[in-house]
């Protein structure tokens, strides 16, 4: 049965299902909407999805490990507030200080997540829900929940500038995705993320330091959130306490749509990238067709459910089994 023609087709569909759907979607958009293929629109899609894309790259590690991180949205806002505030108050000197401060603040949260999950063995949902709420609350306390303006204009080059016609955030997304894809698929650390996510007991028995792998993954996720928050400052020139609300769920959705199940042990960086742009192109398409933006979460949710249902279907070879 494994070598039957149909199951071979099913295997191809299972392995590349999201990619096929994505290609069909993009082709359809090109065919039906003249505005989709314009340079300006494609640039928009890249610009709008880079921040969530960078977060999703980190989230891919956490999900393959068998967990996830709900605090990424709060960390992104933290990086934006810490970074922008330092830049506003310290002027041009504030740019390097702001970047360092934003990264340090996020790493502190990431290390807390990692310590709770890896060494105190707190459930990732509980640990990161806790830090998500605490961090967002602290941001509101510190800023009185009001934004601050006046980041040096030169810094907006990072968020709004382009290199060879490509938005800088998209270039950073590409760099992060390539680098983390290499780490995940080529290095021993990435290999151990799969091993611990697949069978942590077996990994420990064979001498893998599962605690250290878990800790490092949550620190890595926080680093991605820091980069996203800094780019956000570059796009808005503002310290925004309400920034990135709900980004954690969009990022998790993109990773799952990209083929990494919540149970862990599976998934690829290329799948995550396709997942990010699949959700992004659908949102863009709804926009181009003049559909109210309120429909966008509906579409995201339906795609998520469809992707997971299809994955379960193709694994069991039939619904209801």
């Amino acid at each position, binding site marked *: 049965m494994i070598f039957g023609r149909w199951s071979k087709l099913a295997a191809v569909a299972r392995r590349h299902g999201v990619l096929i759907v994505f290609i069909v979607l993009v082709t359809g958009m090109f065919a039906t909407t003249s505005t989709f293929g314009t340079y300006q629109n494609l640039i928009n899609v890249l610009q709008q999805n880079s921040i969530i894309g960078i977060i999703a790259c980190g989230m891919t590690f956490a999900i393959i490990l068998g967990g996830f991180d709900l605090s990424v949205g709060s960390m992104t806002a933290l990086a934006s507030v810490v970074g922008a505030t330092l830049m506003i108050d310290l002027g041009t000197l504030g740019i390097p200080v702001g970047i360092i401060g934003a990264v340090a603040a996020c790493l502190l949260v990431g290390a807390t997540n990692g310590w709770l999950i890896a060494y105190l063995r707190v459930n990732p949902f509980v640990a990161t829900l806790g830090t998500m709420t605490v961090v967002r609350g602290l941001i509101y306390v510190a800023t009185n929940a009001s934004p601050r303006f006046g980041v040096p204009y030169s810094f907006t080059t990072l968020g709004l500038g382009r290199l060879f016609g490509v938005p800088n955030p998209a270039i950073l997304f590409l760099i992060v995705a390539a680098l983390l894809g290499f780490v995940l698929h*080529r*290095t*021993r*650390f990435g*290999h151990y993320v*799969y*091993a611990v*996510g*697949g*069978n942590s*007991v*077996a*990994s420990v*028995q*064979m*001498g*893998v330091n599962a605690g250290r792998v878990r800790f490092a993954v949550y620190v890595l996720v926080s680093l991605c959130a820091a980069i996203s928050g800094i780019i956000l400052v570059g796009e808005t020139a503002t310290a925004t306490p309400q920034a990135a609300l709900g980004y954690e769920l969009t990022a998790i959705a993109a990773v799952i749509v990209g083929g990494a199940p919540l149970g862990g*042990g*599976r998934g690829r960086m290329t799948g995550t990238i396709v997942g990010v742009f699949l959700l992004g192109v659908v949102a863009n398409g709804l926009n181009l067709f003049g559909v109210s933006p309120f429909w966008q979460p509906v579409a995201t949710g339906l795609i998520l459910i469809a992707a997971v249902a299809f994955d379960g279907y193709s694994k069991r070879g039939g619904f209801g089994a």
Partner: protein
Amino acid sequence: MDGSTKATNALLSAERISKSFGAVVALQDATLHLPAGEITGLVGDNGAGKSALIKIISGVFTPDSGLIEFLGKPANFASPAEAREQGIETVYQDLALAGNLAVWANLYLGRELTVSPKFLHILDKRAMLSKTSEMLKRFIRDVPPIAEPVELLSGGQRQVVAIARAGAWGSKLILMDEPTAALGVVETKAVEEVIFELKRQGLTILVISHNLDQIFRVTDGVWVMRRGRVVGYRQKARTHPDEIVSMITGAAASAEAGA
């Protein structure tokens, strides 16, 4: 005791090992020897202390008292990693394979080969793939597809991979806890062939099994445990399943006491 005469050619000896967990006495003055190059069985009823004893030998537990000698030297291992370094591998009942990883990745789990520069820890997949076949062929006649995830293999193939992995790393002693408990007849036979192959290549093996037929098929001799004590050793050629059963249940001891 019959077994003490074996001490001269023993690869490993455990002398008067005791271990309690709170008020529960798991092992009491347990003494056994594993003859070098032989397959030795370890039998006993549930709770007799078999698993506790091999966990002490493999460094998972430290004994409250008693001495373990391996290769003639004292060897109370602080961790399974330490025992593994000295050449003692354990094949666990729950297999210790990661189902989502390929056969080659499981074989090298925790011992991955990397390319230089070493500090980057970049995996040398090509080298691991090409060496995996050789390593498995030493012990397995039908090597399963090494690039496939382990979860696609049958239970027997998985157990064969787990045992071959234990033998592949230059180990001297392999401890197996119920290696065929979940397997069918054909798969059990394949696993037993791998066990024989390990012996043929000079390894010493300790097999825990509830299956007396299997004990009599594969081992050269058997230790019997009862209620935390080692009650005796019998060479396979000089005993009979009925005698082993009476030692397990304690019928032999009470008969002696009555006589």
